[in-house]
């Protein structure tokens, strides 16, 4: 979480310095959602990671250097400069990079789960998605498909109160967590700023999935503390509300917990800061991609590759 925040803060300054082309999105204040959920996954599980979920990439084993390089469009970035900012995923670590069209990845995750079920494998798929994207048809096709086929898939809804500038009231009349029942599986509301709660819920959902009990929707209540993207000043959100949420910051909160357990948080912070600086250095040293390669790789030439296994610090295999 700390690493995610550190990287994103650092990347934001790089963006301001013009070292990050295009736009820049972060998940400031929502770190617990991606960190907590990704932590509960096993190496053979597969993830579709979204645009506020940097921690998930870190948990799976993507190094800070490759992430900075990704932001900067360097050859050494996860997509080698083909795609930008948050649109990436390391297939060798079992992650599929998101497409911009939200929430298309819900169907991809559903399809991965369908394959696991067809092959009778004890694995599950997980994808994150936002409150705004619940208005789109693909949300429904995925939820309904997963429900009717009882698939081992976990849908993690990141309810960060806004879709760009659009508040929840303009997006739906009833909290989407209640839709799950109408698709035939449970929907749980979780404090998205409590990393342990997110972890616990995801772990339980994973058990359900591996036990053949079908999908779970986990709705994480959190807040997008920054603008939608670097250019967005968030005028449309009142300050008190942000202040309130700032007090619930997931990282400070977890730090208090860790301190309670006697962890030397300052040391961890120092470690993380060092890792970040090292990553930035490494990334800045990487070359930009060669224009001559721009048209290569539209099609796969050899054998089709498949997603690989990711790191699972807490290997949630039960």
């Amino acid at each position, binding site marked *: 979480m700390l690493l995610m925040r550190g990287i994103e803060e650092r990347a934001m300054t790089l963006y301001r310095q013009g070292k990050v082309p295009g736009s820049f999105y972060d998940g400031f204040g929502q770190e617990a959602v991606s960190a907590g959920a990704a932590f509960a996954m096993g190496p053979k599980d*597969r993830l579709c990671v979204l645009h506020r979920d940097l921690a998930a990439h870190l948990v799976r084993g993507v190094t800070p250097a490759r992430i900075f390089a990704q932001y900067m469009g360097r050859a050494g970035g*996860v*997509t080698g400069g*083909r*795609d930008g900012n948050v*649109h*990436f*995923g390391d*297939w060798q670590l079992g992650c*599929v*990079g998101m*497409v*911009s*069209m939200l929430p*298309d*990845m*819900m*169907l*991809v*995750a*559903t*399809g*991965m*789960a*369908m*394959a*696991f079920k*067809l*092959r009778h494998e004890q694995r599950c*798929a997980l994808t994150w998605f936002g409150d705004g994207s619940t208005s789109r*048809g*693909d949300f429904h*096709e*995925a939820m*309904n*498909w997963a429900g*009717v086929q009882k698939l081992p898939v976990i849908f993690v809804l990141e309810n960060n109160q806004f879709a760009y500038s659009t508040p929840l009231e303009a997006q739906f009349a009833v909290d989407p967590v209640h839709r799950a029942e109408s698709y035939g599986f449970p929907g749980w509301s979780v404090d998205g700023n409590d990393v342990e709660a997110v972890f616990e819920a995801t772990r339980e959902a994973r058990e359900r999935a591996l036990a053949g009990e079908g999908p779970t929707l986990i709705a994480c209540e959190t807040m997008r503390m920054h603008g939608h993207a670097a250019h967005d000043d968030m005028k449309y959100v009142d300050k008190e509300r942000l202040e309130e949420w700032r007090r619930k910051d997931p990282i400070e909160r977890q730090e208090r917990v860790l301190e309670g357990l006697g962890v030397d948080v300052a040391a961890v912070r120092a470690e993380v800061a060092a890792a970040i600086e090292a990553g930035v250095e490494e990334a800045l040293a990487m070359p930009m991609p060669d224009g001559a390669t721009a048209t290569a*790789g*539209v*099609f*796969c*030439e*050899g*054998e*089709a*590759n*498949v*997603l690989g296994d990711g790191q699972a610090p807490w290997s949630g295999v039960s």
Partner: protein
Amino acid sequence: MPAMTYLQAISDGLREEMRDDERVFCMGEDIGVFGGAFKVTDGFIDEFGPDRVMDTPLAEAGIVGTAVGAAVVGLRPVCEMQFSDFISCGFDQLVNVAGKMHYRQGLAVPITVRLPTGGGFSGGPFHSQNPEAWFMHSPGIKIVAPATAEDAKGLLISAIRDPNPVLFCEHKHLYRRIKGDVEVGAYATPMRARVARDGEDLVVITYGAMVHTALEATEELEGVRVLDLRSLVPLDEEAILDSVRACAKVVVVDEANELCAAGAQVAALIAERGFEDLDGPVVRVATPNVPIPFSPPLEQAVLPSVDRIKEACVELLAY
């Protein structure tokens, strides 16, 4: 070699691949118990079971999107659109998720999407379309369109074995009308053009059902070559330019709507790289830019007919 209809050849190719490779499975609406709207998978569920001949919910984005997910973890989905027209509902998943995946992140998406295309039998505006040009304009998607039973089987097998998303355009109007000898067992037909009839004076370049219309239209004309593209992506540019070099006169035929059709790309290619070999305008015969009407007199008035193609050839030969 047994003679089979175009439809039987598709079923045969699909069955071969499902027997050879357990990763291959079919998914679509009403393809299981019912055997598919056109009976391509008739009886499959008895041989392969409901898991590998999956009746899906009525959801085309779902079909394409879940197929992508299944493919990236190692399966080989063969999706059926009940009619090619319905791919419009899975357009985004196909174009943005499947088509761009390998370029963006080096991850292969080996899916096949079967598209029953084309008109000629009063299908009306929603059951007669030839949507391939939309996807020629969408990077990362291969497209094949067989005209014969032999190619229907061989190109389907190539499509299934290809590590990329491949659209298989099977023309509904050929299903039972076209019969031909088909090799027993599995064989993969290359995604390249073939000369359907040789000739030196003029070449008609087309694909799918129009290959037969073109052959009929030029039967009595001397020296008319008919080039069957078979594959639109990749497009066999060399075969096209060779034919231009050999014939110098070109008629390009599309059953699809004229504007920005596959034939527009073929004509543009020739105008740029075959210009010096040309001895006359690159004539196009295509369906004008209208939805395909239902009533026979209206539909026959818009689809390229034997007469229209013949007339175009006669005129150009006299040029």
